[in-house]
């Protein structure tokens, strides 16, 4: 049957794909999509642990809702930043934003 392990592996894979996107993509929106994917994989993890280990305890699912809220807030702020940068540079490549060095 489909057990805890399957969900955890799925969450892990999604996390890695999201990490890859966040770190290796040049388009800022794609980076955001990666970050969203990472957050959602964590959600899957939380809910899976809740369902299989402590079904009567609703903490995991509640935590997952919090994570969704945070993700939404973060996206709004992030998109605002990207729009501001886009107005400056007219392209969305994160490679161009490299002033955070000596």
């Amino acid at each position: 049957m489909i057990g805890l392990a399957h969900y955890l592996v799925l969450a892990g894979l999604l996390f890695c794909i999201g990490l890859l996107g966040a770190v290796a993509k040049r388009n800022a929106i794609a980076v955001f999509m990666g970050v969203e994917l990472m957050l959602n994989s964590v959600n899957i993890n939380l809910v899976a642990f809740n369902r299989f280990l402590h079904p009567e305890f609703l903490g995991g699912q509640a935590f997952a809702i919090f994570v969704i809220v945070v993700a939404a807030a973060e996206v709004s702020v992030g998109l605002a930043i990207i729009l501001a940068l886009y107005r400056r540079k007219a392209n969305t490549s994160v490679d161009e934003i490299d002033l955070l060095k000596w």
Partner: protein
Amino acid sequence: MITLAILLTIAPVAAYVVIVAFLNRWKALSAGLAIAASGTSLAISLWLLWSMIGNPTPVHDAIQWLHIPQIGGFRGLDLVAGVLVDPLSALMASIVSLVAFLVMVYSVGYMKGDEGFSRYFAYLSLFTFSMLGLVVSDNYFMTFVFWELVGLSSYLLIGFWRLKDAPAEASKKAFVTNRWGDFGFMIGIILLFMVFGTFDYGALARMIPQYSHLGFLALIAVLVFTGPMGKSAQFPFHVWLPDAMEGPTPVSALIHAATMVAAGVYLVARAFVLFHAVPNVMELIAWIGGFTAIFAALIALVQKDIKRILAYSTLSQLGYMFLALGSGSMSAGMFHLTTHAFFKALLFLGSGSVIHALGQQDIFKMGGLSKKMPITTWTFVIGALSLGGLFPLAGFWSKDEILLSALKDGQVALYWIGVVTAFLTAFYMFRLIFTAFFGKAASENAAERELGAATMAHQDHGTGHGDDGHGHQAHESPATMTVPLIILAVLSVVGGLVGSPWWTQWFGGSFGSFIYFGEPEAAHIDLAVAIPATIVALLGITLAWVIYGAKLVKHEWLAEKLKPLHSLLEHKFYIDEFYGFVFKWVMFLLGTILDWIDHKVIDGTFDGLGAATKAGGGKLRLIQTGKLQSYALFIFGAVAIVVIMLSTNLIGGFAK
């Protein structure tokens, strides 16, 4: 008496300080002050000599100079500044101050018109101070300090005309060669201190005879002897003395004939107890002395410059002194030092008189000077006769004593070397006299007026000398120059009588009972030694007359016939060339290699470390890309590692 001995040394240095500080422009005052100071030293030293003759017990006093207490394994150091007045030092002080005084009086005439006149008298006073300090010091360390000071004064005085190349080079050569000797001397002194714990002559005189490791003592003795080898220019450290003739002639008379070069002999006499304890080293000293004597006499046979002949003669006579000391007779060595001081200073001052008059130094360009410069000529002849050892002049008695001591010590070979050298000595001195003083004038300026600028282009005279307008023609020198010559001539005649048996008859005691080691030595003539020596000297004079006086055999013909030998002697046995080769291909080569190592290897290492750091830093800075994604990746990597580390227990613990 100790106060007087201190005053004896302080007077000249006070003169030096005053002249250097204040009197550079007032020449007469400088000369007067220097002469007054050395006159004071002369008076005091004669008084000390007189009281030592009356009462020969040594008088000794010292103050502490530097004291380092004993700490742990370090035995402590006690440096003392002390004064010792005994017959030996009183005699030496008298000789030094007498010759210094006469030379200073002479220099008033000789250096007239020279722009460095005050500086000259300042340096002469400094030298007198150094030499007198050396003479009265009572321990090895103080002797060494004054030894170095004497070397410094010699450097300053040889290079007196410092704006010309040859004196500057010669003074450096003198100082460096001296340094070689001083290095060995210093090590010897340090070893003495390490073994006996003291530098004091008196204390060592008690301790050394009881010391049993003769091998080590021999090493110390040889090292200490390298000092006199350097200072008194024995082979192979003799190379500086002929070049030192670049200095003014009175300087040559004072330093390089009578006093500084005698400092080595004085030291051996002072340290005689050390050498006496190791007979092998004594024999070495005697052989070095004997070898130098004949070596230098051979070179002197073919020299043309009047001062070089006298310089090699000095080397030869110093060899005689060491021969005497090495044969165990301190009396004979010191006696010859005394008489040599008189006649060699006389000869040098006489040659200075000639140079002052003619402006050049080549004997073959002189001739017939006896008519125009009688006082110089006849005092010079007296000096040469004394040097040759003719009865009853001073040199006869002292040379006789030396040959006698060589025979008594069983050194027959050295005796014969001494006899042959006596022959050569008489020959080259009279070669000089017949060529320079008698015969016909060989060049214009020996007889007529100077020819102008050409005659001024010569080595001995400095900047101002020819400008006094009297022209370089042969003429007798002024009284300030001839009076010292006459005084020294008188001393060369009668100075030896103190070592003669008649003195013992008239006054009781003689030189050998005043200055001796072990037992007093009676003065006597041993006819078996005296007669051959005199005959040999007369033979030398006759041969010189044959070749150079009556010119029965032309010396150019002889030079042609014996060309290889002649050129060997003329090039001074190629020793200077050999030293030049060694310096260039050994010392400088070693220096160049070490310099390369210093620049490329050692500096390279440290510069390389710096360059490597810079390069590494240059590569490392590329981590800071400024791109957020790389930073995020690093953060993630770090978090992953931390999580793994923290969860070690949960995932199975550390590997067993």
